[in-house]
């Protein structure tokens, strides 16, 4: 390290400075939310940037969240919706990507572009039509409605990213499978999917976070008490005249936890990299 030229060290220091600044900017708001969730309301307003001290610490927010609302149910709803959507996005996205990258057929490119179009057109533009469809299908106030909408929302990006990755999976490997008598489904599930695991993890993270954080569709499609998600559930503490800030902050702090766990699970896959040794 000491042998490095001074200019290089200076440049490295600048890079680190920029990264540290960016990390602070990203983390600080979250930190403020979590910190203040452990404080009394008076302390939140008097000194919002102060960590909880013995004199200002309070669990009142968490107590309110747990006693005055059915937060466990909201959590469960959010998890069901997020994991369900994630499952279908990854499954159908990967299958479509495999077909697009593996088989030569008419309109292949057109179909690929059509599927990718969804990345550019926000699904919220279709909210009214979606609501009408859900009403006709009798799916309003069900978690199924949310899973369906989020699956549609997540598919374009999934197909786009995964088909790029699947193009890079060795043709020889797939052909070896075919010669050994594996069905196309086995080739897809057993040979190809494990090799694109890092891409799956990337897609999972990009798909999961917007779903977990979404307020729009739960509010419109499933606002009923039994189908409320966490983000919607937290809104009950936001009143028109009085807002129970410590409860809101506690609810939000709690909402971070499951998604954090999921993210850690996937990021391990992200880092692990493509299984070596298949080719070359």
């Amino acid at each position, binding site marked *: 390290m000491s042998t490095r030229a001074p200019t290089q060290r200076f440049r490295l220091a600048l890079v680190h400075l920029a990264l540290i600044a960016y990390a602070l900017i990203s983390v600080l708001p979250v930190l403020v939310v979590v910190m203040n969730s452990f404080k009394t309301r008076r302390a939140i307003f008097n000194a919002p940037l102060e960590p909880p001290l013995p004199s200002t610490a309070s669990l009142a927010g968490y107590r309110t969240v747990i006693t005055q609302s059915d937060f466990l149910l909201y959590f469960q709803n959010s998890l069901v919706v997020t994991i369900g959507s994630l499952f279908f996005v990854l499954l159908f996205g990967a299958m479509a990507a495999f077909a697009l990258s593996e088989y030569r057929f008419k309109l292949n490119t057109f179909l690929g572009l059509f599927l990718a179009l969804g990345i550019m057109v926000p699904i919220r533009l279709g909210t009214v039509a979606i609501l009408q469809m859900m009403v006709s299908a009798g799916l309003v106030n069900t978690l199924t409605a949310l899973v369906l909408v989020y699956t549609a929302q997540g598919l374009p990006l999934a197909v786009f990213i995964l088909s790029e990755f699947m193009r890079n999976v060795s043709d*020889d490997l797939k*052909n070896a499978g075919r*010669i*050994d*008598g594996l069905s196309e489904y086995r080739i897809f599930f057993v040979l190809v999917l494990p090799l694109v695991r890092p891409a799956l993890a990337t897609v999972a993270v990009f798909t999961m976070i917007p779903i977990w954080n979404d307020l729009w569709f739960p509010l419109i499609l499933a606002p009923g008490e039994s189908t409320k998600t966490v983000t919607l559930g937290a809104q009950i503490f936001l009143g028109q005249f009085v807002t129970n800030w410590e409860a809101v902050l506690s609810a939000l702090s709690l909402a971070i936890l499951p998604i954090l766990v999921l993210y850690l699970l996937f990021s391990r896959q992200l880092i692990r990299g493509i299984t*070596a*040794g298949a080719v070359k």
Partner: protein
Amino acid sequence: MHSLKLTRIVKTFGQVEVLKGVDLEVETGEFVVFVGPSGCGKSTLMRIIAGLETQTSGTVEIGGRNVDATVPARRGIAMVFQSYALYPHLTVAGNMTLALKEDGVPKAEREARVEKAAGLLQLSPLLKRRPAELSGGQRQRVAIGRAIVREPTLFLFDEPLSNLDAALRVATRLEIAKLHRTLGATMIYVTHDQIEAMTLADRIVVLNGGTVQQVGRPIDLYNRPDNLFVAGFIGSPKMNFLTKRFAEEAGAATLGVRPEHLKVDPAGAWAGTVRHAEHLGSDTYLYVVLEDGQEVTVRIPEETPIAVDDAVRLSPLPGRLHRFGADGLALRAA
């Protein structure tokens, strides 16, 4: 009996005709090498034989059975790929038995076959390892083992040596030749390397531009090439082609002579100047510019004091000249 029979195989990708009607018969136990420059259609032809690609027209028969509508797994073939294509999630033994499991071969027989193949290829100590824990040469042996356990009618090798380094390539080449003798199986081997073709093949099929240029024993291709392409492709360094005066004197459009069939001879009829000399120890390659500006390579099987800018006279060995007509086809004395 024929192990493989191809009849008028044509393959087009969109507007491009990759194979323009290939006919071929391969006898049981033969080692046939498809050789040609990249893009000549040799890999496509192999993929059609394997059933990984469907031909636009023509028929493929394997072991006397038309397999045009048969999936790859039921064609009685086994294939070794350039990139080995081992299943990364399976052990060496798992890689070798997967096809047999799919085929419903009983466990005891599977194990017996793996043991036999592993013994043949010195893989026995590696059976429990995964592909990631093997070296390149070991992976290629596993890929070959995976083909052997299937006991196929036809072995297909798709450039199996091109990912190996030079030393390993020679060793594996010998191993494949030995394997062919031991198993007596029919093998088809695709390569762009004419040395691999010459050393391994019973018969070579030279392809260029989607057509078969010549089929024959290696030594016949060397001694009696049918056309300019085969003459230039087989043999290293490649054959010298002379036109103008030299060809006219011989009554041909192009005169071919191999570097090893030219001799430095003070009484030689061809005069020239050495432009460059490569001293390899066992051989010396002289690059000689002839009087009329045409260049030839001369291979001398020993060391020589001849240096750059020396004037030399050359004479071709009698009976070693190849005459080609204006259409590129060999002219042979009637």
